[in-house]
């Protein structure tokens, strides 16, 4: 690899190491891709929201509803990195409509795509050949099987009707500060070539300044993580680190005879071993569509584990395979989700703004639901923001949002569920035992709180301690190779742009990841972004196929040396989910 130092005055002010497979920029230099500091245009809003997901849109809608009710005017802007609202939304999803009802009491009449009530709720413990039915720990009566992407698209149209300005195709890549206070965000520069030079289509990013800024980027949000670090939000609330899981999902279209709308199935056990937390889901939606997937906690120890291959294997189980046979896959995708629950909630307020939704982390892990709490947090933040902005006191503060959260049902729910996930740290059977105890008997009321184990990135053991897993080859009917699946995610990025996946130290993958962990990123990434390819000297080097990226954030979370940093690519890139 040659190290090339570029002359001052050229378009990239960085030292780069250039391998045969593509350039990797030293990550700090990313900010300085354009020559000179061109002035950025800026626009002012009352509230700037990053992310058009359930939390972001619920907050935006609530703000406008309050404006209508109280006859005030507030300008609300939502930026979304996906090409359309809903493009980057992926979730199971069995939806608890509680927050939707708070937002729109007449959501049914208004035509919200929440139509299929849960009709059957099954829970199986799988072995490699059998499926043992267990009593379902879920109480899904009154809940619906939905596509969250569809619901979010509907929320988007409702928000625009109320006057919210939504800008899909723009990545918020920078937090703007003024004397330690967040004053808004800036979008990515667009039209920069892979080598860092400006193309003819170059457009400088824009500043969106808000009296208040809400970060609703979902799990492991890029700006949210920066803000959590800067203001030490976890320390402020005494929270532990966040823990995560990676969910791999497909939507199938099955034969009419196999379709049971409202059928809900969860499994634990095979193919995951007793030391790996996770489970599968299979939900029948409308239109003969079935959502199916596997969630694997990212504190798994075996670097040879591939969540994608485990999912493909799972589908071949004798009790699962018949449910899908004869059908075809319509969409594929993957996303990480929070599993830290109550113990990991950071302080959600910082000077100038707040964290809402999964950016903070309100997933109820035993229920496997997070959309309802995400939306509720958006509502609470919006109500606080409206109050504060109406008062007119500058600078506006969202401190009472933190108090409202603690007094809300989000807190009660997450507190009651807090000991279940950490119990699995001791293994599957102890986990199931404690879950049952907590779920049916103590309901979180006993005065103990189990702690999380080590952070996910420190949980991987060296490859020496494990053996490679011999995954079965895809049959092309039920299981598929990764690139075929990736095609079904409609993911793409403008190829001539710098890689958005940055390495703090470009030599670490070959020095550490490859040697100690057998190049684990080439196995957990559900998009084949990371590949170890022999170079001209037959030496394995890391190739980053950034164009494939599904924006799942697994690499940012799981990389043992925390060398990989996920940053926002040019807006409108990434997956194109419509029924995920």
């Amino acid at each position, binding site marked *: 690899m040659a190290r090339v130092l570029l002359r001052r005055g050229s378009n990239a002010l960085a030292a780069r190491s250039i391998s045969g497979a593509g350039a990797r920029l030293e990550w700090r230099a990313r900010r300085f891709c354009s020559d000179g500091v061109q002035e950025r245009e800026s626009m002012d809003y009352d509230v700037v929201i990053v992310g058009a997901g359930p939390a972001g849109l619920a907050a935006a809608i609530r703000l406008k509803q309050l404006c209508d009710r109280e006859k005030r005017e507030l300008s609300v802007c939502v930026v979304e990195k996906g090409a359309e609202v809903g493009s980057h939304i992926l979730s199971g999803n069995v939806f608890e409509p509680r927050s939707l009802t708070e937002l729109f009491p007449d959501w049914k009449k208004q035509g919200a795509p929440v139509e299929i009530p849960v009709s059957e709720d099954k829970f199986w413990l799988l072995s490699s050949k059998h499926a043992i039915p267990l009593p379902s720990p879920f109480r899904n009566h009154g809940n619906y099987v939905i596509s969250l992407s569809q619901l979010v698209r509907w929320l988007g149209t409702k928000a625009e009707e109320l006057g919210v300005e939504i800008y899909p195709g*723009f990545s918020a890549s920078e937090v703007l500060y003024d004397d330690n206070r967040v004053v808004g965000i800036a979008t990515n520069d*667009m039209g920069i070539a892979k080598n860092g030079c400006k193309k003819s289509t170059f457009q400088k990013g824009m500043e969106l300044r808000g009296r208040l800024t809400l970060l609703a980027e979902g799990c492991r949000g890029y700006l949210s993580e920066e803000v959590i670090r800067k203001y030490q939000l976890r320390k402020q609330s005494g929270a532990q680190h966040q823990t995560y899981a990676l969910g791999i999902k497909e939507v199938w279209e099955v034969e009419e005879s196999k379709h049971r709308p409202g059928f809900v199935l969860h499994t634990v056990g095979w193919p995951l071993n007793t030391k790996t937390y996770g489970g599968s889901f299979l939900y029948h939606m409308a239109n003969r569509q079935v959502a199916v997937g596997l969630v694997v906690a990212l504190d798994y120890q075996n670097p040879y584990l591939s969540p994608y291959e485990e999912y493909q294997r799972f589908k071949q189980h004798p009790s699962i395979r018949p449910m899908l046979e004869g059908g075809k896959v319509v969409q594929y995708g993957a996303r990480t989700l929070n599993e830290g629950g109550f113990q990991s909630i950071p302080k959600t307020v910082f000077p100038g703004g707040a964290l809402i939704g999964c950016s903070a982390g309100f997933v109820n892990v035993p229920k496997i639901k997070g959309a309802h709490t995400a939306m509720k947090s958006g509502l609470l933040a919006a109500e606080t923001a409206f109050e504060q902005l109406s008062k007119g006191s500058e600078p506006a503060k969202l401190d009472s949002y933190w108090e409202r959260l603690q007094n809300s049902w989000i807190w009660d729910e997450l507190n009651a569920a807090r000991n279940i996930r950490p119990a699995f740290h001791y293994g599957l059977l102890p986990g199931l035992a404690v879950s049952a105890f907590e779920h049916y008997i103590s309901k979180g009321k006993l005065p103990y709180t189990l702690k999380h184990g080590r952070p996910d990135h420190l949980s991987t053991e060296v490859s020496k301690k494990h053996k490679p897993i011999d995954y079965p080859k895809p049959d*092309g009917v039920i299981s598929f190779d990764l690139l075929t699946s990736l095609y079904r995610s409609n993911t793409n990025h403008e190829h001539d742009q710098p890689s958005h996946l940055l390495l703090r130290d470009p030599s670490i993958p070959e020095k550490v990841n490859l040697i100690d962990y057998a190049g684990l990123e080439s196995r957990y990434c559900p998009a084949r972004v990371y590949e170890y390819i022999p170079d001209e000297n037959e030496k394995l080097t890391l190739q980053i196929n950034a164009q494939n990226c599904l924006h799942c954030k697994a690499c940012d979370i799981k990389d043992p040396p925390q060398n990989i940093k996920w940053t926002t690519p040019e807006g409108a890139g990434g997956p194109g989910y419509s029924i995920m």
Partner: protein
Amino acid sequence: MSMNPFCEIAVEEALRIKEAGRASEVVVVSMGGEQCVETIRTGLAMGADRGLHVITQDSSSLFPLAVAKLLQALVSSEQPRLLLLGKQAIDDDCNQTGQMVAGLLGWPQATFASKVSISDDKESVCVEREVDGGIETIQLQLPAVVTADLRLNTPRYATLPNIMKAKKKSIQRVTPEELNVVIGSDLEVLEVTEPPKRKAGVMVASVDELLDKLKNEARVF
């Protein structure tokens, strides 16, 4: 809905012609259901002056001839000097609309344009076309129809301020009935099949076996 890539190139070219002072107004037209509005707004955000939306019940009945007839009707009321289209849509790959509307209007046409230059007196346009043998340069009297190919230009990004300004630009809605055009389904889609799935590769044991398979199974020679 995102704009058909070739149409985006056509919009970009129209904007460049206006920015060069050779045109006074750029109007973007889209036909179909409600999703067209978003596509038109993208064109407006790129810099077009106003939009025209021909509303039809469902876009699937809009075959090229119907679109050409609707464009012919719009042309008679709008009186543009240049009609710029993408060479084809990436959903049906027809590559017919530009040619058909030129025929209906009796206008000269230059398809697969990779370079467009309006003359100083704005009476003619010089177009370089990509053809199999190379590049063909032709000159057309205006008004004319030009369809855009990939290498004509690289479309600009719509900036946030322009997207916001586009919300205020007008989009006129009109129905085929108001244009006195009857949309018939002159084409019927009988069947759509996926290309055959790639079969698994076959390992051959020797070069002779390879030659045998190439000759007798794949019929390469």
